[in-house]
């Protein structure tokens, strides 16, 4: 994966996140700095491990392989790490708690089971200027569908949420990959070779760090 060309972007983008002189009540730091810090990684990794453990316990009884459960647990862990400051994190957390149907019903709306595309058909544009606008709108809507909980957001908020979500996803992928690699390395190596296998990753890690 294109690992994060901007992974070290925390320093250049830090000037952007300087505290405002108190005028804005919530100066959200740009997602690069917020999600790239090492503390977030640690936090998330810990939460992920806990989630995995719990998932394992749960799925022992329920189903054999809970890859979906693992994914959900990982997403929930990610959302929790976000502390509910972003819409998508809230949507993830609350979406799990109470079934989405209930929420929809409470809102008084109809539950649309199948997303009909009747409005999705791109109408013919009058002139090229409008066409471009429609393309952009289409894509914005698609983005809204991708980011959890951001279906009907205005463009500005949607873009903001998307930025946060992308940064969070990158953190998640990074963490999960490291975890999976470490775990598979640990479990693949037989117990006797345990020590030798340990030495190599250690050396590698030291070189890498």
């Amino acid at each position, binding site marked *: *994966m294109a690992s994060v060309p901007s992974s070290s*972007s925390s320093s250049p983008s830090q*000037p*952007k996140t*300087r*505290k*405002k002189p*108190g*005028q*804005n009540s919530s100066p*959200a730091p740009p997602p*690069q700095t917020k999600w790239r810090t090492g503390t977030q*990684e640690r936090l998330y*990794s*810990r*939460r992920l*491990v*806990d989630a*995995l*453990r*719990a998932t*394992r316990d*749960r799925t022992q*009884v329920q189903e054999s392989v809970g*890859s979906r459960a693992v994914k959900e647990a990982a997403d929930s862990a990610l959302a*929790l790490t976000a502390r509910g400051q972003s819409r998508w994190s809230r949507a993830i957390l609350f979406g799990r708690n109470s079934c989405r149907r209930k929420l929809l019903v409470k809102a008084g709306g109809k539950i649309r089971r199948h997303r009909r595309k009747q409005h999705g058909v791109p109408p013919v544009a009058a002139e090229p200027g409008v066409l471009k606008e429609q*393309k*952009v709108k289409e894509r*914005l809507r698609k*983005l809204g569908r991708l980011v959890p909980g951001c279906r009907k957001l205005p463009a*500005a908020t949607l*873009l*903001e949420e*998307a*930025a946060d*979500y*992308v940064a969070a996803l990158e953190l*998640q*992928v990074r963490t*999960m*990959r*490291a*975890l*999976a*690699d*470490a*775990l598979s*390395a*640990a479990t693949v190596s037989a*117990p006797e070779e*345990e*020590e030798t*296998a*340990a030495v190599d*990753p*250690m050396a*590698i*890690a030291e070189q*890498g*760090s």
Partner: protein
Amino acid sequence: MWKWSSDGMYSSSSANHIFCSSEFRFHRSVPSSHAHSQQKHNHKHKQVTVRTHTLSSPLLSSPMEDEIQPLLNPTTASASPSVATSGASFTALLGLPPNRAVELLHEPTFPSDPALVDRAARFSVFAAAAAASSAPSPEVSPPPPPPETAKKRKDGASTNGKAKVKKGKHAEEDTDGENKLPYVHVRARRGQATDSHSLAERARREKINARMKLLQELVPGCSKISGTALVLDEIINHVQYLQRQVEYLSMRLAAVNPRIDFSGLDTFLSATTMECGRLTIGNAKVGTELDQQQQQPVWSEVGVSDSDRMNSTTNSKRLQIQLQQNQLQQFWHVDFLNTQNHSQPSVWERDTVMGSTAPHVQREEQHSLVGPGAVPLLSFDRVNPVAPPIQSNQQLKMEL
């Protein structure tokens, strides 16, 4: 000053007093914009606040002028026309004949992107100006959500990004030509409509553009692409790619899951730093010397139930230590997971701590754990679902 002009709209207490001091009829707009979020009310109040600026500009209180003066001097010294125009201050314009001022104001050499001009202008001014306001200005000028303040700044940015220039325009269409008044109106660039609607739209567009920029930086390879639709395409692809990665990795983890020793993992995590880029078991071992001796029993248990029972004593020692270490990490279970009382096929179970801190979690292990370090975590199996805390350990030991 830049600061007050932008802040005034966005609920800066420091700027408010300036507005209050100057005579203007719309002072109610300022506290309202102060109270509410910018997004909701900016649109409505934009025009109003614009007017406030207009009115207050001739009544510059002396502190304003003091701030403005130092800005004037360095900026007027600059050579380039754009900078000169941008640096052209309030008083400088006043000194010019009106037509000249108009020309200056409507310098057509600006780049088309208002946001860029905005930023460039602000930066240039603030770099040049050593005014007192420059200290807070770096904080103000590149705010993470420039759109917040860009709404007003966009007016300023078009010709004079500088604070000194009062962004102001009458709501009624004094178009570009009207500049004879002593106010300096920062307004639309040449050829742009100046009515309130287009202003609002421009503000909104700038906000969106700023956010798009942020996204572009986040997504690799998007900086080169020009055009909103294509950039959005890239972003969508990237998000889908990341989500697919997550699914794939979760599948991998699910495959690996049944054979993990989580308690050991916790120790590893706390000892290692994931920033190394690689979480390795070996790293953690360096951190906790104890584990090294006991690794074999730890890993031998992986997936195997029977052999572990032999190692109960050594493991119990290790687990006690881990138990203490892991206590900190268990709150999360309480928040979030409702684990049920599942029994573990794998014998060697791990976090005792979970039990101690999560009263409502009904796992069997927790019943077996009373004190943090007192009782080593022991394996439990389906046979003894709920047992009195200490007795369960002994029972299991006896079974072994």
